[in-house]
């Protein structure tokens, strides 16, 4: 799989997880502001700074399971 395809798959995974969040939950992201679930999903789709941070947070979290197994 190419890097681009992997990135797209990761985006899909993160968006699928975000869609499971209840709609009444909002994200307070420091100086960036308060965001709804839909706004965060748009950030991930667009690949802006907040979206990149959300993806990185998910990946670090998922990788922590691997560390725990090792």
């Amino acid at each position: 799989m190419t890097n681009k395809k992997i990135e797209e798959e990761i985006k899909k995974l993160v968006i699928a997880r975000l869609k499971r969040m209840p709609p009444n939950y909002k994200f307070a992201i420091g100086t960036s502001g308060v965001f709804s679930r839909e706004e965060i999903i748009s950030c991930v789709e667009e690949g802006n700074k907040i979206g990149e941070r959300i993806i990185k947070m998910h990946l670090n979290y998922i990788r922590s399971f691997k560390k725990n197994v090792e």
Partner: protein
Amino acid sequence: MTCKVFVTRPDHDDETKYLYEYSKEYIKFIENKDIQLISFSENKCSRENVEKLILKQNPNLIVFNGHGNEEVICGCKENEDRNVLTIKIRDSQRDEIIIDMKNKEILKSKIIYSVACSSAKKLGMKVAKSHTKTAFIGYEEEFIFLMDTRKMCKPLSDQIARPFLESSNQVVISLLKGETTGEAYNKSQVTFQKWIDYFQSEKAALHDSISIAWILFSNKECQKLHGNRDVRLF
């Protein structure tokens, strides 16, 4: 000698309102102890007032609630009548800078806990190097938390925000119990992990497991202690 604790508590937007409300939990704790509390709410949280207070009262512990970035900690919302340093928070909001690289020396030899996003990254690192007795606990990335829109008018009853803010408050509670900065940091880390474990367990609803644990994990990972790990308030 009575120990002095200084807390900045601006409350001009949703995030600072939550920090303001949750700070009541450790303020209640301070009021039951022989500790002098100096609390600055929104109208007092200017750079000038904060500098004066720190220089005059020389508090042992300073807790900064508010916005920030890698190089600054903010207080109140911009007051257009005064010519002060500010940073853009969002399109319609600028907040006053109360601590930056220019006045960071006033934090020398103090214990600092800053919830201001990313302030541990550069500012906190530099402050911690100012004196061997200085300790700076904060976050190297943005401190992110979830809010339940149905509870935003009563943040203390928001069970979705509580795991984040309770883990953060643990730093202050431990310090107020006379524990070292290293112990306070470790206890906060343990509290983050306790909540992560809970949300990874079958006890939590699946939608909460998916929603909350990864954000708690991120806050736990980016929380740092710079400087002296062995200082305590008393």
